[in-house]
C-alpha cells in the first residue's frame, strides 16, 4: 500500500532522515521505533507533506513527493500529529467537523461523526466543550477521532502515548488495535517499544535517521538489539 524508498527529510542544515526504505501493506500495523531524535517524526512529516522530503513515497502507485499536505489528506492519508495539536479554542464538535469537512458529500459526514461519538463515548460527553479544556487523554482521543473523520485508508500516528498516564496508554493502544480490525492500515511511531510491538505486525528500528533493524512485531520485542538501539546496552 505504502512503499518508501530512499526517503530523506531535511530541516535547514540538518538531515533528520537519511534514506529510509520500508513498506506498509494493506491492513497492517507497522511501527517505527527508535530513541528521541532518530527521525521518526520527521519521517511521518515527510509522508504527510509537512516537511520537505526527497526520494520516493509511493502510495497506491502514486508518488506523494512534492504534494501539499491538503492534497495528501485527500488521498486518504491522515496524520495524528505528535502532541495531539487539537484546536484548543474550538469545540470538540468543531474539531471533528474540520477533520472530515473536505472528505464527505451530503449526509455521510453526520454518519461518520456518529460513529466517532460511539467509538469515543467521552467525546459525546464533551461535545460542546472547548478542546483546550479536555485532559491529555481526552485530547488524544479527539485527535485520533479527528483524523478518522476523513475515513483514511492509511493512518499515521505520531507518539499517541506521549505524556499520558499508564491506564490511558492502555486504552489508546487497545483502540489502535481495534482500528486495524476496521480495515485501517496504520503506521505508528512510538517510543514505547514494548507497547507498540505488542500490537504491531512489523516494526522498524531507526537510529540516527537510518533503519538498523526490522522484523515481525513479537520477534522484535524479544530482540536484545532493540534495547541496544535505545540504551546502547
Amino acid at each position, binding site marked *: 500500500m505504502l512503499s518508501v524508498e530512499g526517503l530523506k527529510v531535511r530541516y535547514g542544515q540538518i538531515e533528520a532522515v537519511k534514506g529510509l526504505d520500508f513498506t506498509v501493506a494493506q491492513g497492517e500495523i507497522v511501527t517505527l521505533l527508535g530513541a528521541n531524535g532518530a527521525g521518526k517524526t520527521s519521517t511521518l512529516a515527510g509522508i*504527510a*507533506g*509537512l516537511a520537505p522530503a526527497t526520494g520516493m513515497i509511493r502510495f497506491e502507485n502514486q508518488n506523494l513527493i512534492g504534494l*501539499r*499536505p*491538503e492534497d495528501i*489528506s*485527500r488521498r486518504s492519508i*491522515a*496524520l495524528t*500529529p505528535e*502532541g495531539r*495539536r487539537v*484546536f*484548543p*479554542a*474550538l469545540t470538540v464538535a*468543531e*474539531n471533528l*467537523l*474540520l*477533520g472530515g*469537512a*473536505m*472528505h464527505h458529500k451530503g449526509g455521510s459526514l453526520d454518519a461518520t461523526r456518529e460513529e466517532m461519538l460511539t467509538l469515543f463515548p467521552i467525546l459525546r460527553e464533551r461535545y460542546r466543550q472547548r478542546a*483546550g479544556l479536555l485532559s491529555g487523554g481526552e485530547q488524544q482521543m479527539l485527535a485520533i477521532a*479527528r483524523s478518522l473523520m*476523513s475515513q483514511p485508508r492509511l493512518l499515521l500516528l505520531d507518539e499517541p502515548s506521549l505524556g499520558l498516564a499508564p491506564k490511558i496508554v492502555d486504552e489508546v493502544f487497545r483502540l489502535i488495535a481495534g482500528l486495524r480490525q476496521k480495515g485501517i492500515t496504520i503506521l505508528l511511531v512510538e517510543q514505547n517499544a514494548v507497547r507498540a510491538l505488542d500490537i504491531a505486525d512489523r516494526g522498524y528500528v531507526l537510529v540516527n535517521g537510518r533503519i538498523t533493524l526490522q522484523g515481525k512485531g513479537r520477534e522484535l520485542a524479544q530482540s536484545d538489539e532493540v534495547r541496544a538501539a535505545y540504551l546502547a546496552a
Partner: protein
Amino acid sequence: MEFFIQQLVNAISLGGIYALLALGLAVVFSIVGLINFAHGELMTVAGYGLFFAIGVSLGLPIAIVVAIFAAVAMALLIERVAFRPMRRADVTGLLLTSFAVSVILRVLFQNGISARGMPVPMPSALAGSIDLGFAHIGVIPLLSIVATAVSLGGLLLFLKHTVVGTAMRAAAQDFAVVRLMGIPANRVVAVAFAVSGVLAGVAAFLWVAQRGSVDPLMGFVPVLKAFVAAIIGGLGGLAGAVAGGFVLGFLEVACQAFLPAAILPYRDAFVLGIVILILVLRPEGLIPAQTGKRS
C-alpha cells in the same frame, strides 16, 4: 441629557466603524501574520464602486453590493498578486509589502480615476434625523450602528456555522494541522482576504455616507485608526479588534465633546496617550489573541 445621548450614539456609531476596520485587519493578521496597510485602499475601491454605481443610477442597495464586491475583488487580487508570493516573509516583510501595495494602488487611483475627490450623493432619506422623543438621532449614525451590528453578527455566524469559517478560526491557532485535515491553505487565506474585503466594503459605505466624497487618499486615515484599534484590542484577536474599535471610538468622541477648547487641538495626542496607558497596563491588548501556533 439629549446632548449626552447624542454623543453616546456618535460614539457607538464611530466605534462600530472602527471595529469593522480593525476586524478587517485582524482577520487577515490572525491567519497570515500580515498587518495589511492596503486595507484602506480596499475601502477606496469600495468607495469608487459606490461612486460609479450611484453615477449610473443603480440605486443604493445595489450600489452597496457593488461596493462590497469591488472591495472583495481587490482583496483577492492583491492577495494573489502581491501577498501570496511573499507568504514566507516575516511580519515586518509582509508589513512593508502592504505599504508598497498601498502606495502603488494610490498612484493607480490618482492616474486611472482622478487625483481629485468625487462626489457620492446619497438619497436624501439618509440626510435626515429621527426624533426619538428624548433625542434627535441622525439617520446615518443609526444606519452605522445597524450595519455594524449586522456585519458583526453575520461574521459571527459565518465563523461559527460554516466549515470555512471554522477552518479560519482553526487556522489562526494551528495552520499546519488545518492543512493536514485536507483543507487547502490557499482557500483559507483567500477567504480571509475576502472577508476583510467585505468588512472594508461595509465600512467604506458608512465612511463615504458620512463624508460624501471619495478620493485616492481616503483610505489612509481609517487604516491608521484600524491599526491603533487592533493594537488596543490585542493584535490578531477578533474579539479584541471589536473591543479596540469601540474603545477608540468612545475615546475620540469623549475627548472631542468634553475636552476644554484650549486642549482640543491636542485631542489626537490625548487619545493616543490614553491608548499608551492602556497598553502599559495590558501590553498584550485588552483581549489578547489565542494562538496555539507551532512552527
